[in-house]
């Protein structure tokens, strides 16, 4: 079980952080504002707590898993050979579809904001070509890439958010009362939905070199992603208010477009687009890698590289055929994908792990 292509626990957490930045920036603040209104900027906080609980549960489930075993191996141990393989195949198909959705989503976002006269096909093809090449490679290379990019991404996001500070008005963020509590909880669901995506990365768990006695350090990425969610929601809402934010597909981007730094530098959104593209690319490449890893376990193959290209082709097909226009796509984006994602990340996969634990398979 792949010990040669090993990564550290820290590298895995960085990969999770950079990858999940992609959906986090994509869905926020609109999806949280839909539920929580002007109190949406508080929604990441309950999401953090929920994420922490899920993290603790997954850590408890995987505590005694033998080194070199990933989530796919745990699934086969938990459910037995046949059923376990079937569940792994189902998960692989879902994640392939999800990778296609992320590609299409990234393409649509670029068209809506920067390249209005372009075609999504160009962006989908380029992204998948690069993602397949990287996804077929070593986990170490992808994780190192994420490690190198992370400070840049965080730096850019922090600088951009701070530059937006002069436009933030407390009038658009307040009042928030106790009665908003329920709405905030609902608003935290989309944020938690993204955070729960860390579960997929546990399929790469077999690649992690465990130091004896070392505790998994996944808390920093969770806190980091929550901080990003908080920042994006807070600054967007504080600048354009809940009503305008909820009516815009890319409200955060619209806010960025208005930024002027000391009245000298303006139109810095290209930097944010670069952040999007980088995180999208890392996320898609990671998903292809995860799917390949699952197929490797299911087929019993020694290497997973051969699975990346077919997965990329299937993901591309999903990206092209998922929806004809932006309205059809919105339906997937708003309802179906979050629902399926939550079903897998919050219910099915933890349930399988729990079954394995109950059956004392690890």
């Amino acid at each position: 079980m792949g010990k040669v292509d090993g990564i550290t626990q820290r590298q895995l957490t960085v990969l999770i952080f950079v990858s999940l930045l992609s959906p986090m920036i994509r869905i926020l603040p609109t999806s949280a504002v839909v539920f929580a209104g002007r109190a949406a900027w508080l929604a990441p906080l309950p999401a953090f707590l929920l994420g922490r609980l899920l993290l603790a549960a997954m850590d408890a489930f995987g505590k005694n898993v033998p080194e070199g075993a990933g989530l796919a191996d745990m699934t086969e141990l938990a459910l037995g050979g046949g059923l376990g393989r079937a569940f792994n195949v189902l998960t692989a198909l879902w994640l392939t579809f999800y990778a296609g959705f992320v590609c299409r989503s990234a393409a649509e976002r670029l068209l809506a904001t920067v390249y209005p006269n372009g075609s999504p096909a160009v962006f989908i093809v380029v992204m998948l070509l690069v993602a397949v090449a990287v996804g077929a490679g070593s986990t170490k290379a992808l994780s190192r890439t994420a490690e190198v990019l992370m400070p840049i991404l965080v730096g850019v996001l922090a600088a951009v958010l701070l530059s937006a500070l002069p436009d933030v008005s407390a009038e658009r963020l307040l009042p928030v009362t106790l009665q908003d509590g329920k709405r905030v909880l609902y608003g935290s669901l989309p944020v938690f939905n993204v955070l729960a995506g860390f579960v997929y990365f546990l399929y790469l768990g077999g690649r992690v070199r465990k130091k004896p006695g070392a505790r998994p350090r996944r808390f920093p990425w969770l806190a980091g992603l929550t901080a990003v969610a908080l920042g994006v929601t807070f600054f967007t809402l504080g600048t354009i208010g809940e009503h305008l934010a909820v009516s815009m597909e890319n409200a955060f981007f619209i806010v960025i477009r208005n930024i002027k730094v000391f009245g000298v530098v303006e139109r810095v959104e290209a930097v944010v687009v670069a952040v999007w593209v980088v995180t999208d690319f890392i996320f898609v490449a990671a998903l292809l890698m995860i799917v390949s890893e699952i197929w490797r376990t299911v087929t019993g193959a020694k290497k997973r590289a051969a699975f990346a290209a077919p997965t990329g082709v299937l993901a591309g097909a999903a990206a092209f055929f998922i929806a004809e226009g932006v309205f059809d796509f919105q339906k997937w984006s708003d309802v179906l994908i979050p629902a399926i994602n939550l079903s897998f990340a919050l219910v099915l996969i933890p349930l399988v792990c729990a079954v394995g634990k109950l059956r004392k398979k690890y």
Partner: protein
Amino acid sequence: MKKTLVLTLALTLALTGCSKGLTIFSNYRRIENIELVRAFTADTQGDGVLVSIYGTAGEQNDARMVEKSGPSLGTAMGELLMMPLGREAILSHTENLLIGEDMARQRLNECLDYVERYSETRLDIGLLIVRGSTARDLLKGLSGSDPSAADVIAGLANHIARVGEGAVFTCREVAVSLLENGVALIQCVRGVEEEKLFDARGDLNLEPDGFAVVTEDGQTLEFLTGEETLGCLLLLSRLEAKDLDLAVGDTVATVSVEELKTAWEPVFDGDGALTKIKVRVTAGAKLVSLRGVADVTKKSWREAAERALSETLRAAAQAAVARSQTLGLDFLDLHGITARKHPMKLEAMGRDWSDIFPTLPVEVEVEGALRRTFDIMDSPEIAEKEEMTPWEKLTESLKDN
């Protein structure tokens, strides 16, 4: 693996992106081929829209104006951006949008929608209504002017704020206010002489003309007077500076109001009903000039000046409140203020704001303070007349204060 990666990256370089033909410059624009549109106008024309853009670019830094009409703002702008001046017009650095009165009355939402939707435009574009003429005429008259039309318009927007005649709200602010309050304020300008934007010599003859009040449904377009506009600036804390002539005894003092603080306090009674809203405005002013003879160091004179200042500002604030309540349009955002201060109490009242607002007492208290007289403490005439020793002046001053 490395070969695959290199090959993939090499292939991506050949992608054309959004440009035509095989090129790696997918989103590349040569500076001499672009027209930076710094300001554009929109007016109604029959059932359609007439738009004009004003840009400056190129090696000669020449500035020109082009216009196009169409059934909608989108179609007119689309055509205009396709064929302007032989260059590619881009709206990424547009600073101001001027619209005619009819456009504001009939198609304001279309303007905001275009700015929000178009991928190049920023939301922070200043929005102005040109009254008594068309916005296109304003731009047309400024074409070829030195400084450029865009500079004149940008300067005008700054000037309006600095002289306290209004404030240029951006498309973002207008859109947010319309969505959150259902009403918004937009700065107006108009020609000085018989509504002509330019005088006989062709020079710009334009003045600020207060705020227009517009509603979300586009059904209302009302215009505020100068006093009401000043009141709005005070209560919205948007006043940058304002020179006022105050009659103080036999003298006329010109003061510049600069430092402003506004504190709101909604008052609820024991039954939880909102009985009134109190607003206290603290305005600091400096003495700019004095007509007549007065000893400005005397407390009695200063107090008289401050009373006159307070009364002038209070009247303006009350005028704004009264107009807002008469129209039934909460453009001062009293609902938002109450909701932020006492969200639970407001919700517990369970009454619709539109029922409460028109008759809600608003108590305005203004405290004007004269804070600076610059280097001249006495009026020159007094300094000449009085021949007191420094010690006498000091004891006199202590007695007075």
